[in-house]
């Protein structure tokens, strides 16, 4: 049996949390390292899951509930792995924890934010609004603790936040700290980021206000989003009565992401339902290459097909233009079944941007990467594993199943070494 019976999980999204609770609940110690100031990752930013259309907070809350009392899980937010040394059963890992400037005394009372004079671009809402420089990442943040964005809180800003806190929770002199961990195996659950729209040369380069990405659409539809859940278009706050969904915006494209991101078809159908649920007369058109709704997801597709106001058109959008006066967006396609080039104008266009794996951007990655930046699954280095989207572009359900299996692999590796 290995000297170190603990597992390092890199990434505290739905996959990382799942690996952590599964391993810890069978008696192994887990270090869960997350770069953001909160756990939950991309799932926390979703409005609803497909196909059940339930809010992701349910699933997240269960995981938080399992993590909180478990003394075998030690989680670290605002932290990144910077170095990995050693081998299976005996890794030495260096973790850098960046200052949060708010300590455990925080009760989440919001007084610091109220007093904070400065604002910052809100990354949680993909830059569609601003928050105070002293902020709670999102309403259900775990840990329920504020953060101060020091880059946006210069001058007297920090003191103003500190003065407003009755609990002595603001620590403006916090410094970055380095921790050394001894672990037996490592699981990368580093997830993904949305593909950068600026790289999509023929789809507006991210420069058109009413051409948004699918992740932005999740925030627009979310009660905790910039519009409190009302789907309004960014340029003028108009209610959207016609929305185009552009599939494979970056995915399945060797000039961008050569892989199929696998979730975008379902995500766009789901978002078409968001629009249809909010506005009775709204129309949605999904432009696709192939609609990939495998297995029981086919029923979800059938539901969209049955809706007269949802049109599914085979033909990839390859030109987008925005009317400077009205803000309306015109897309050009070849309708493949009709064999005709066609232009259509919408209030707003949602690009189904794909999932770009984050693993390559994680410092000190010890994992072997495959083409496209995903971790090699089989034949990975001994003692190193990956779970969820770090390994392949998959949906939440598959990520969780994969993570449960990966927890077992990580444990086996410790037991064998």
């Amino acid at each position, binding site marked *: 049996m290995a000297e170190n019976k603990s597992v390092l999980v890199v990434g505290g999204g739905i996959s990382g949390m799942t690996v952590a609770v599964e391993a810890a609940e069978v008696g192994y110690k887990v270090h869960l390292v997350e770069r953001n100031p909160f756990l939950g990752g991309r799932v926390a930013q979703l409005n609803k899951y497909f196909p059940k259309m339930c809010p992701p907070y349910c699933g997240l809350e269960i995981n938080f509930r399992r993590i909180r009392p478990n003394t075998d899980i030690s989680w670290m937010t605002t932290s990144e792995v910077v170095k990995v040394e050693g081998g299976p059963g005996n890794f030495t890992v260096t973790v850098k924890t960046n200052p949060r400037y708010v300590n455990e005394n925080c009760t989440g009372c919001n007084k610091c934010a109220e007093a904070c004079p400065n604002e910052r671009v809100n990354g949680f809402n993909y830059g569609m609004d601003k928050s105070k420089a002293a902020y709670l990442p999102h309403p259900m943040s775990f840990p329920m603790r504020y953060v101060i964005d020091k880059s946006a809180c210069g001058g007297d800003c920090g003191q103003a936040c500190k003065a407003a806190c009755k609990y002595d929770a603001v620590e403006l002199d916090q410094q970055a700290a380095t921790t050394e961990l001894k672990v037996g195996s490592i699981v990368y659950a580093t997830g993904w980021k949305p593909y950068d729209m600026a790289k999509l040369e*023929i789809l507006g380069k991210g420069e058109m206000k009413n051409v948004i990405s699918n992740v932005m659409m999740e925030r627009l539809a979310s009660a905790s989003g910039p519009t409190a859940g009302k789907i309004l278009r960014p340029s003028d706050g108009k209610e959207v009565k016609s929305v185009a969904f552009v599939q*494979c915006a970056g995915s*399945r*494209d*060797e*000039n*961008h992401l050569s892989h199929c991101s696998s979730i975008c078809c379902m995500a766009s159908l789901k978002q078409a339902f968001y629009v249809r649920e909010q506005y009775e007369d709204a129309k949605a058109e999904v432009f696709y*290459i*192939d609609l990939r709704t495998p297995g029981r997801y086919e029923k979800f597709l059938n539901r969209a097909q049955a809706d007269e106001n949802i049109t599914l058109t*085979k*033909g*990839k*959008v*390859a*030109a987008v233009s925005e009317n400077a006066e009205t803000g309306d967006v015109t897309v*050009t*396609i*070849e309708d*493949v*079944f009709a*064999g*005709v*080039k*066609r232009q259509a104008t919408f209030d707003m266009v949602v690009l189904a941007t794909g999932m770009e794996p984050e693993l390559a951007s994680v410092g000190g990655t010890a994992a072997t990467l495959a083409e496209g930046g995903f971790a090699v699954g089989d034949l990975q280095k001994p003692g190193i594993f990956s779970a969820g989207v770090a390994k392949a572009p998959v949906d939440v359900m598959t990520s969780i199943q994969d993570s449960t299996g990966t927890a077992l692999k990580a444990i086996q590796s410790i037991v064998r070494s």
Partner: protein
Amino acid sequence: MSDIMVEPDLNFIKGLTASGADTVKKCYQCATCSVVCNIAPEGGPFPRKEMVWAQWGLKDKLAADPDVWLCHNCGDCTKHCPRGAKPAEVLGALRKATIEKYAMIKPLAGIASSFAGSFVVAAIVIIGLLAAIGHLNVLANYHEVGEDGHVNIIFNNFLNTHYVDAVFMPLFMLAVLTAGYGVMKFWNDICDGAGLGKYTGRNALPSILPTLLQIMQHNVFSACGVNKDRKIPHLLALVSFILLFITTNWAVVYLYVLGWEPGSYSSLHNPLKWVGNIGAIMLLAGAFLLIRNRKAKEATQSSSAFDWNLLYLILLIGVTGFLAQVIRMAGIVPGAQVMYVLHLIFIAQLFIFAPYSKLAHLFYRTTAMVFAKHTGRDLKVA
């Protein structure tokens, strides 16, 4: 959509793959290409439909498809293709297949892909004829030394211009006739393919002049994205062909209408020589720039031997023609004669293979553009 019976011709697909369309099977029919193409018409745009037809091996449908020729190889489809299926290159290979299909003398079409092969055929024709008329001794002295000591080389003395004409006029007529045969078959097939039936040829006559004017404007080339800078070089090459054609006919007038002596107009004082030389310079510049453009884009847009053969042939015609004149004027006796014969062989190569080499695009693309105008499917131009 009506049902169609798909009868794939596997050999056709293999042939395409061998002639530069090895990427055709990568296409997954997303239709990005049809949208990013700046010149494809709204109704039935290309090249997406051609890609699937090519994958299915629908040889006859593709041969009867004018859109294969409406494509001007801008390369925008290849640039934006998410699969690296290179539609521009595939359509280039399809054009080659069409040329081969409508070839009247099939063996020549087979040789056209090989520069060396076509050169040998042309050389055999020219040298054989020279031998037949007893002029094979290239190094014999057919020059005169003038009173001022200047060496005057008169090609007519070495190789009588009437013999040259007796060879090239039939070669030219053969090219025109065999190309005409291909064009007529092509025209019938595209009319059939569009469900227009016979006799549409006469109705299309009014579309010919506007098409020729459009070709001279070269405005389709301006609409290209990636290959925009090809417009001037291609126009140079085209205009040079026209100028050199005029020059040739002008000489015919001197020789056979006005009854001038061969060679009597070969001094630079004759305006015929001015036009000829301007044409030659444009030909050289056009060929050089076209080759340079293709070389520069080699990493992203592949060119086949079919493409290179024509460009290098034009360049060689220009170079040998120009050198023959310079060496003749400088009085370098053996060099001038060798260069002159080489020049004649390259021209013969151009003529003999005109309906089978890439030069055939002159006939087929023009025909397709006339058809497009006739049927109201004009290309979108800048």
